[in-house]
């Protein structure tokens, strides 16, 4: 913009600086929060005479991360598309049952069982996606519905645990490399794949577009249904992976394992905790992993300290609300002040030339008063 009037030169300097800050922001804050939680946790654990950083405890935390991690990775994709998936806990349970039933204790059945589980999950995801994109049913309601349908099926056909998982498959949930469980490694690999998918494929890019502004995406020639369909399918598949992992740990399939874990709302909470906008269009897989890690650390500290399980939920609730309140404060932070309280020109703040009041009208859906660029 240096091409215009004499007033603009100050604007050219803040622009790149601002943008660099912005990109660090979301994941940085999650990272800082995670480090903070770890420090507090370590101190608390030390106060009862235990070592937070012992191999055993690290393994416990990482183990606690993997199941929710799988679910939350998929949930991130769906939320980026401005949808939601409430059917994940039922997909988790169903997957554990299908896997355990088909394996029936025989290691030779493992590949077929895993394949069937993934296909079934993909079909459920496809159904979710089609309901959302073709019938235009809000994702919340659509997946609430499909979730209830699966729940009904589970409740009628299974009275309790079922099937048997062979020892070979149980190893996945039980072994580790040093203090790092294999399941966590698989989860992190999926996270890498997911992050790569978002950054480097067209469909991944288009998820941000569809979630950010469907109209814009459509007018840019994007087939807007496709990213949403893919996101829902991938979400069900990651939920199925979580189900497989749980089957591996339990040795059997269980119709209630998903709902007991509270994976629907917990995964959404982890995604939001990780800085992804619930409205879609902005967020990252790594933020979500950070969110999952925060939950895992908080849970672990409370277990070690033998906190009353009901109080656990209170703490979780506080963490979620506090985190979102912090983000909201960041988002609604007003334009950076130009003047200090005494009326001096704030040298650091400089010009608000970049991103004047009109910027809010630029299709962001936020009122102009709630500028967040300088947050």
């Amino acid at each position, binding site marked *: *913009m*240096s*091409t*215009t*009037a*004499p*007033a*603009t030169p100050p604007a*050219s300097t803040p*622009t*790149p600086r601002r*943008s660099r800050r*912005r990109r660090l922001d979301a994941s940085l804050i999650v990272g800082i929060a995670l480090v903070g939680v770890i420090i507090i946790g370590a101190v608390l654990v030390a106060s009862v005479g235990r070592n937070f950083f012992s191999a055993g405890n690290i393994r416990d935390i990482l183990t606690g991360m993997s199941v929710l991690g799988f679910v939350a990775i998929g949930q991130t994709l769906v939320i980026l598309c401005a949808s939601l998936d409430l059917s994940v806990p039922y997909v988790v349970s169903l997957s554990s049952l299908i896997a355990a039933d088909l394996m029936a204790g025989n290691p030779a059945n493992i590949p077929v069982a895993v394949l069937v589980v993934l296909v079934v999950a993909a079909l459920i995801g496809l159904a979710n996606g089609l309901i959302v994109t073709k019938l235009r049913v809000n994702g919340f309601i659509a997946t609430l519905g499909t979730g209830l349908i699966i729940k009904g099926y589970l409740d009628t056909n299974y009275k309790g645990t079922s099937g048997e998982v062979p020892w070979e498959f149980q190893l996945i949930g039980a072994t580790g490399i040093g203090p790092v469980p294999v399941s966590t490694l698989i989860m992190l690999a999926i996270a890498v794949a997911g992050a790569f998918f978002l*950054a*480097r*494929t*067209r469909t*991944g*890019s*288009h998820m*941000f*577009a569809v979630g*950010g*502004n469907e*109209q*814009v*995406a459509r*007018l*840019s*020639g994007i087939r807007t249904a496709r990213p949403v369909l893919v996101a829902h399918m991938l979400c069900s598949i990651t939920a199925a992976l979580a189900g497989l992992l749980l089957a591996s740990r339990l040795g059997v399939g269980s119709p209630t394992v998903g709902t007991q874990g509270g994976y629907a709302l917990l995964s959404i909470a982890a995604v939001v905790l990780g800085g992804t906008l619930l409205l879609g*269009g902005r967020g990252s897989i790594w933020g979500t992993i950070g969110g999952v890690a925060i939950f895992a650390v908080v849970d672990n500290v409370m277990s070690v300290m033998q906190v009353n399980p009901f109080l656990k939920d209170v703490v979780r609730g506080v963490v979620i609300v506090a985190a979102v309140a912090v983000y909201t404060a960041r988002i609604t932070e*007003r*334009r950076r*002040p*130009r*003047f*200090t*309280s*005494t*009326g001096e020109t704030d040298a650091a703040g400089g*010009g*608000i*030339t*970049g*991103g*004047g*009041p*009109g*910027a*809010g*009208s*630029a*299709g*962001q859906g*936020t*009122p*102009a*008063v709630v500028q*967040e*660029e300088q947050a």
Partner: protein
Amino acid sequence: MSAAPVDPIDATAARGDAIAEPVLVAEGLEKSFFGVSVLHGVGLTLRSGEVHGLVGENGAGKSTFMKILAGVYERDAGTITLGGTQVDFSHPVQAAQAGLATVFQEFNLLPDRTVAQNVFLGREPRKRGLVDRTAMVRETRALLDELGIEGVDADAPVRTLTVAEQQIVEIVKALSVDARVIQMDEPTAALADHEVELLYAIVRRLAARGVAILYVSHRLKEIFDLCDTITVLKDGALVSSGPASELDTDELVRRMVGRPISAYFPEVEEGTVLGEPRLELRGAGNGYVDDVDLELRAGEIVGVAGLQGSGRTELVEALFGIAPFTRGEMLLDGQSVRMTSPRQAVQAGLALITEDRKSQGLALNQSVADNALLVIRSVFSRRTGAVHRELPGVLSSLEVASRGVDQEVQYLSGGNQQKVVLAKWLATKPRVVLLDEPTRGIDVGAKVAVYHLMRRLAKEGVAILMISSELPEVIGMSDRIVVMHDGRASAELPARSDEATILSAATGTLRIGGEEAR
């Protein structure tokens, strides 16, 4: 402009044999929605290298016409010929691929994605099946350089750009498809005056490259500044299409509205008395504005000029208690007040017509009545019944064209939406009215209605503060002009000051009272 050499990037520029060569011919376009004809038999011819102005009041069919060309709407009848072949687009992307790109009035950008990601949205370059981010950034930079734009980082999220820069990104997006024809729908609607100059330069540069430009704007000055040819639409029909040199503003306005508007800006109404100071500021400031002295008297219209980001909106937001003053003094009818919330401001008799009517002025999916009663219901609930009864009368006196008070405001034109906003605030019987860009994006007829309303309010003793980026409006309507620069009121100028004086104060090159306003 930093004079980067202009070299046509492609061979499409049919410049040599151009001038007379039509690149786009539309004939007899018809369109109706739900049985209501909005376009009948409209056509025009676009030649390469030509800037073609398309004007008409809101509802005249300009947007519909553009959207049919762009493939957003299907036409009911008529033909479109692009580069000699008849075309039939069913999607804007199809049109863009054929060389007809459109910069829509609403920004079609994703604020959280980078400039490059936005420019290549939907057709990201790929290498081995993966998005080639380096190529995307490189090509975006090349396009920006070509337009002589500096300071826009291809890798920066769009949300960090100014409105003008976002507009440039839209144009770059259109350019990136090697367009032979670019349609621009109100490209300056959100720009301040000095930013408009940059857009002019870009438009001229494109035209010089042989691109044909169809330019829609409500700002007639721009039409005359830029356009070689002007096509006028009225009520969905073609009024005239011919060289700009054959028209002047009066004649153009006459053709657009079907009646001459000799007095575009109404004179002060008879019987208007300049009364006591209604609103005073003494050295007031907060984080966004500083050291503002202001006196607003009953019956007076004070215009606030200034560049985008100079603190104009921040000033009215402070007055209205959105970001309260932290220093200095604010007096209302001589009484010192501390305005700390909009509710308090409303109760004290202030009204704020915000600049962004869609996100701040209206609940778009609610009815005309719900919107018009919004403030009354929430602040003066006892008066709701009476105001509700009077509403139809108020709306018709404002000439709001709606299907009734139950219609959702999102289906009204911009001008009518703005009138609903005004009705909402008039119902509170305000003593001080703060208007932030009151005529942005509304048609000539509605503008004049707003101007008359302002004069009428002044006559009734209301004090009016009007922010505007359109200097003719500031000059035409203000009894006094305050110019903001860098968060401070850099100058106070008398009525009818000339544009040059206002601009030099706004850019800080005018010295006032010995203090340099930078």
